[in-house]
């Protein structure tokens, strides 16, 4: 990503549900993403882009294009062109680095070969060598894949995404290349429902879903104008002013990630979740699993080691609305 100034996440006015859903995903990548639905001009894309601001760091093999963790199996490296790196890993001498969780943006005009990867043309032409040219999914491994206006994506690109999201692996069989690499990513998508719906299959892949609306309070609106103008005027200065708030939030997220492993959910909690899912007639069991994870993450974020009723209620609000639809024409979240 290039160095364009990013509007600070902490400076977004209102939209608490949206912010919570994104923060939960940062704390716990197991929540498998968030879909942000809403009308035009409601900070959907701004929030998604701003997320980079508060992301924690992960440990990876030095300069690894797939962001592999040192604990990933080294067999993955046998296919990689970075031979010396594979050699080192086999000997257990791989160097590592700390880097920010990567954010990869998938533009709507992207073609399949650039998403999954394909034959490297230049090497084929010059050296007559078949070499894999990495696609966007490679860099998104262990990171965030962000799709603006995900409902406008071509169906066949959606198919590819679903495939990788389901398996956590990207397998390429095209143009004489046969290759696969890990592709575990958190999917963040924005969409305006006026422009058409997502396929239920893809909808279900998003762990959480929030609906955003414009703010009705004139004072809040003025605040939006103020902050936006201040940011446009002096992006660096504005980010500086919000630095403290951003750091605090990032700190809270790190603390929550550490606490997450210790959060307990007893049988009663699971019963409650199961009942909620049965009552809302969701398909499959993904809702149950995600809701439990979300409730635990919420507890961790609120500095607790036990899941409480309020966590479950909040988690239900984030996990159920987009899974409850029985008919394509029934509205999500009843709104």
């Amino acid at each position, binding site marked *: 990503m*290039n160095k*364009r100034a990013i509007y600070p996440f902490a400076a977004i006015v209102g939209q608490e549900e949206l912010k919570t859903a994104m923060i939960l995903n940062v704390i716990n990548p197991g929540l498998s993403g968030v879909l942000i639905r*809403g*009308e*035009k*001009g*409601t*900070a959907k894309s701004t929030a998604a882009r701003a997320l980079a601001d508060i992301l924690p760091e992960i440990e990876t093999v030095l300069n690894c294009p797939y962001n592999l963790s040192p604990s990933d199996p080294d067999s993955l490296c046998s296919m990689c062109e970075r031979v010396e790196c594979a050699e080192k890993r086999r000997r257990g001498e791989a160097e590592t680095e700390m880097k920010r969780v990567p954010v990869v*943006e*998938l*533009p*709507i*005009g*992207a*073609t*399949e*070969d*650039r*998403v999954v990867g*394909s*034959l*490297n*043309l*230049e090497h*084929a*032409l*010059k*050296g*007559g060598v078949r070499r894999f040219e990495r696609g*966007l999914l490679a860099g998104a491994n262990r990171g965030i894949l962000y799709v*603006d*206006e995900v409902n*406008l994506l*071509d*169906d*066949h690109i959606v198919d590819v995404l679903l495939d990788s999201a389901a398996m956590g692996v990207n397998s390429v069989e095209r*143009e*004489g290349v046969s290759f696969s690499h890990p592709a575990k990513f958190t999917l963040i998508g924005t969409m*305006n*429902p*006026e*422009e*058409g*719906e997502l396929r239920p299959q893809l909808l279900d892949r998003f762990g959480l879903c929030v609906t955003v609306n*414009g*703010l*009705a309070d*004139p004072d809040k*609106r*003025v605040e*939006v*104008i103020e902050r*936006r*103008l201040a940011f*446009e*005027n002096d992006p660096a200065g504005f980010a500086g002013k919000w630095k403290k708030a951003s750091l605090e939030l990032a700190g809270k997220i790190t603390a929550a990630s550490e606490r997450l492993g210790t959060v307990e959910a007893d049988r009663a909690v699971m019963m409650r979740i199961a009942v909620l899912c049965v009552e809302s007639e969701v398909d499959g069991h993904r809702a149950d699993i995600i809701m439990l994870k979300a409730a635990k993450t919420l507890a961790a974020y609120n500095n607790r080691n036990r899941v409480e009723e309020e966590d479950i209620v909040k988690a239900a609000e984030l996990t159920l609305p987009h899974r409850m639809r029985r*008919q*394509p*024409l029934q*509205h999500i979240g009843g709104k």
Partner: protein
Amino acid sequence: MALFHQPVFPFSAIVGQDDMKLALLLNAVNPRVGGVLLRGEKGTAKSTAVRSLSRLLSEPFVNVPLNITEDRFSGGIDVSGAVKNGVITVMKGVASEAHGGFLYVDEINLLSDHIVDIMLHTASAGRVNLQREGLNAFYPASFVPVGSMNPEEGELRPQLLDKFGLAVYVESSPSVMERVLLMENRELFDRDTEAFCRSFEKEDESLKKRIHEARRILKSVKIGGEAKSRIAAKVLEANAAGHRADIVMAEAAMSFAAWRGAYEVSEGDIDRVSEFALLHRRNDAPPYRSEPESKGGESGESGGEGKTGKEHEKGSSERTDESAGGNSGASTERPSEGGETVFGISEPFSVRPIFSEKDRKRRSGGGRRSKTKTDIRRGRCVRALNTGGKNDLAIEATLRAAAPYQKYRTPPEGMAWAIEPQDIREKEREKRSGNFILFIVDASGSMGARGRMAAAKGAVVSLLLDAYQKRDKVAMISFRGGGSRVVLHPTSSVELAEKKLRQLPSGGKTPLSAGLYEGRRLVEGYLKKDPLGRPIVILLTDGKANVPLMEGANPREESREIAAQWARDSRVRFIVVDTERKGLVEFSLAETLASSLRTVSLAINDLKADTLLSAIKRSINE
């Protein structure tokens, strides 16, 4: 670009069109205003103004043609470089040429939706993110997008409308003096271009200075708390979605203050620019009614002085129906047969498949009803062909084709392969194309009888469900009382369609001709944008026309005539759903209409049965 040296009509010499000029100047001073959408009539110096303003500022001006492909817009692979030198380079597109200047699209509502998406995305990001055809590149492309459109030819999607910072309604000047001055200027320009341009040099020069001065001042322009509250209040009052209107209005007001040479935004500044930010975002009435003239709308009345709704004048105001002839000129929407009612929707059912054969024409657009070959370099690559000219290289197939000859050829310096033109293979891509389905719904009073309207709505919802699964685009027109109106412009959102349908009121007389006329106009607008599209028109009516388009005409004969004319357009397929008919044997007015449209009429019950498919197949084959 070569155009750059062509003589351009001087900006200062453009007569009138103050709003348009101001909106462009606000963007020139402050590009964060985010572009202008010029809505309105043709021949109002729209492109001239943009061209001359960018010439005046010595900034790039790029005119985007409607047939542009994605690779020419954002950039694509340089094929000759790849094959000749084995180097993969990006051939940048027009987005990059427009960097730092204006990007102009005439008739943007006819440009492919996908390209408009990419264009406005690029404009707001200020750069191109190219992830196509093995290319991975970012390059700067910040430009002011300017689009022009005549709303009568079809709307832009609301999401895209919102991405244009400002919108201006452009119309020809009503002042005789101005029109005369305009003609004189044009004459002088044509007679002696150079002399004419020279005579405006001074004015252009001072305009340029003023723009540069305003750009300098802009950095120090303050906007107070009260001004911001005023902006928020205006946007709330207009019920515009989201916050973009607020931010754009603030930027435009600051730009205007700077243009005046003031360092603080005044109330007047906001009032001057607020309409520019709200025209295309206002949401008080049904959307798509942003023109001040309010053409069409709920009724399409207003006795004929409307400047844009010529068809509507014919369509509705000259109505002379037998019973209510006395009150012509009054609002035609007044229900003359009972009151206005909103009927519910009967239980939806699953419909039989309509039209699905794979066809041989190349099309653009996405969807799932029919598989189609595509020329726009999207879709899945299905095979490689030696066709040439599409610049869509299938590298693997090309290499395979060249392989047998490598023994006999000498590769150029630094290359492993010798590839010759006859080896080149290009990709043939396939994607499913959605159809475009237009529902023309009779919402007259007679449809209220015996649950017809509820049944009709149920049928439309069932067809919508089917359309959803097939990724079709849908649009809806209703006719009742004195005229017809477009309830829903073409959209992929069947949810929006369902919402509009639910709220659709009925009552009043049956202006069937107006409904057909409006439908034809909409379909033709759609076909301009997607010439290879295959629209399906589904007409739900009992056929009891009683309001003609032309004064004194027999409404039923007239509607049949219009139907017969339309039926000659072989690109369009029709289905008539007879809302009155119960069984298969009864003869009805809708059936007569259907035969004029060279199709068959179906009872609502038929939609559920296997008969639909066969009936439609029969209707196409005949």
